[in-house]
């Protein structure tokens, strides 16, 4: 047994009249760590539950390891799932919880116990095996849930926001542990989250979803550096990317406060310029903006600006001494600008033609 690839082919899921997932095409490689990322209601959890066999697609096919699993019961798909609520069986001890999947496979008691011991040692749960879930802390419950998923060595691991009920410190720790676990096991991980930090740090590739549709499927770096559309651009990154709507005449992007020459083929007139906060360079440059709010965070300062009706956010060094009301000059890093078609919201493959310094 080893890792398996996972494929969604034109998968659609409707609950009555409400469409949760529409025409999802997604090919996840064997052994890959993929995050399904999006705001709540975007269809990511429904997709995961369809993969687990807990929901059935209205149309389309789902396959695991080349086998179409639409008609396969959840327990026979060779997947394991970690739930947001952990879903530990409250009336069973930790040991019984971890052993449950093995029991359902018909494994003999002795072998079951050996397997449970192995997993408990791996997750440092040995001392807790005889406790009931309610006697455990949140972090311990989470490890038991992981243990129950690991014990069968399934081909695919499904994780539904497993870290969202932990406090921030433990969450950071568990992120590292999950990355390590994935490396050790080499199995396919499908990880649902609404936390972009989790998705960015752990995934090989991120599937960004919105309104039941896949918006972009790419490695974290690419999702950040080359967002495929306005939604991904503004969803990924904190603070989010600045979006400035303006006009394009074939050569120059124009907004009352900002003009940027671009080289692009067949661009429409109505476009949107995207600039990450770290690419707004305060202190010198051809443009002017009024400082509205200054938020020092410690290691840097977030500055909110307004330029002729456009709201901009900039990252500035911690020691900058800007005050609200002040007018500052600024420049934009030309090699890091994004241009989008304002109507279709899709990314335009454009390059700013010159450094914008004058």
């Amino acid at each position, binding site marked *: 047994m080893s890792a398996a690839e996972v494929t969604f082919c034109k998968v659609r899921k409707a609950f*009555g009249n409400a469409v949760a997932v529409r025409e999802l095409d997604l090919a996840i490689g064997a052994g890959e760590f993929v995050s399904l990322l999006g705001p709540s209601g975007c269809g990511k959890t429904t997709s995961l539950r369809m993969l687990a*066999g807990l929901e*059935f*697609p*209205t149309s389309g096919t789902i396959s695991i390891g080349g086998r179409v699993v*639409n*008609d*396969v*019961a959840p327990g026979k798909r060779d997947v394991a799932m970690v739930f947001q609520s952990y879903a530990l069986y409250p009336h069973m001890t930790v040991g019984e919880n971890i052993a449950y999947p093995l029991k359902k496979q018909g494994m003999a008691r002795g072998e079951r116990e050996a397997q449970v011991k192995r997993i408990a040692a791996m997750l440092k749960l040995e001392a807790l095996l005889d406790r009931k879930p309610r006697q455990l802390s949140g972090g311990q419950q989470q490890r038991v849930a992981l243990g129950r998923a690991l014990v069968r060595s399934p081909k695919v691991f499904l994780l539904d926001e497993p870290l969202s009920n932990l406090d921030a410190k433990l969450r950071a720790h568990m992120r590292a542990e999950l990355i390590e676990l994935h490396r050790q096991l080499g199995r396919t991980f499908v990880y649902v989250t609404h936390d972009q930090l989790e998705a960015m740090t752990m995934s090989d590739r991120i599937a960004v979803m919105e309104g039941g549709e896949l918006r972009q499927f790419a490695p974290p770096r690419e999702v950040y550096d080359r967002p495929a559309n306005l939604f991904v651009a503004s969803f990924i990154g904190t603070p989010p990317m600045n979006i400035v709507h303006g006009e394009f005449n074939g050569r120059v992007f124009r907004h009352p406060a900002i003009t940027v020459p671009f080289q692009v083929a067949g661009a429409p007139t109505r476009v949107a310029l995207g600039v990450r906060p770290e690419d707004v360079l305060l202190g010198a440059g051809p443009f002017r903006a009024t400082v509205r709010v200054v938020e020092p965070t410690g290691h840097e300062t977030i500055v909110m600006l307004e330029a002729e009706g456009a709201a901009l956010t900039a990252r500035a060094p911690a020691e900058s001494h800007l005050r609200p009301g002040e007018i500052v000059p600024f420049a934009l890093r030309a090699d890091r600008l994004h241009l989008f078609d304002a109507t279709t919201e899709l990314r335009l493959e454009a390059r700013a033609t010159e450094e914008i310094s004058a």
Partner: protein
Amino acid sequence: MKPATNPLDRRDAWLGVMLIAPSVLIFCAVIVYPLVSAIYLSLFSIYTPTLQGNFVGLSNYAELLAGGEFWHSLANTLIWTVCTLTLQVVLGIAAALMLHQAIIFRSLARSLILFPYFVSTVVAVLVWRWLFNDLYGILNHLMIWAGLLNMPLDWLGSMPNAMVSIVLVGAWKYFPFVVIAVLARLQTIPDNLYEAATIDGAGAWGRFWDVTLPQLKDVLLVVVLLRAIWDFKEFDLIYLMTGGGPLIATQTLPLMVYKEAFGMDAMGRATAVAVAMMFVMLVFMLLYLRQAKQDAAK
């Protein structure tokens, strides 16, 4: 809902249907069939001992609505329901507020208050009839001793005493229901609401009116609707206390059904009364169903 297309989905739905099937079968046998049958029977004139009858159409209903007894019984039912329900709610809220405070042996006090609700109506009635006994009953003795009466009172055999008696016993028997529901709700009212009200200068009464009552509104609505439905159809308590007497002075609709069927041997007319009564109750029932739906949506 469209039929499931996925074989697994379909198998699951099939299993679900199999699991509910025994319930549905029993429902059909002991509820749906009798209900339909009741409406059907109410169109016949049936002699109870022989169960022979002939079709008379709506004339059972016509007789009913034209005669005075139905209206008299309906009025009795309403008087009984409104009076006993009011007492239940007032006593229930008061007792719940009391039990919510820290009193000594609170759980024992709670058990003692709840007990009347769970005790059989037969037991409750026997005990009260003994208490109400005109010659040897403790109630008459106590009241004479206290100077409230100068001769024993006939509690159950004359009006309006009989109605007052059943209303009192009804209140005693059923107010614990209100207590439990209100008590459960009281325990979920956050303390900071009271703290805020105290800071705003509200006294004990102010806190009750402005914090407690509004918080209790929803649960009281449900309790009142449920109890109204159950009091309206109460048979055991009234039948066993007074038998509807003196004459028919405390005869409510459920008692009239029983009397028509087994006293007057007019099974058809009895079912007509039952069906008519159900339609009156339907108002409360629909109100309750609507409320339950709203609560479920929350």
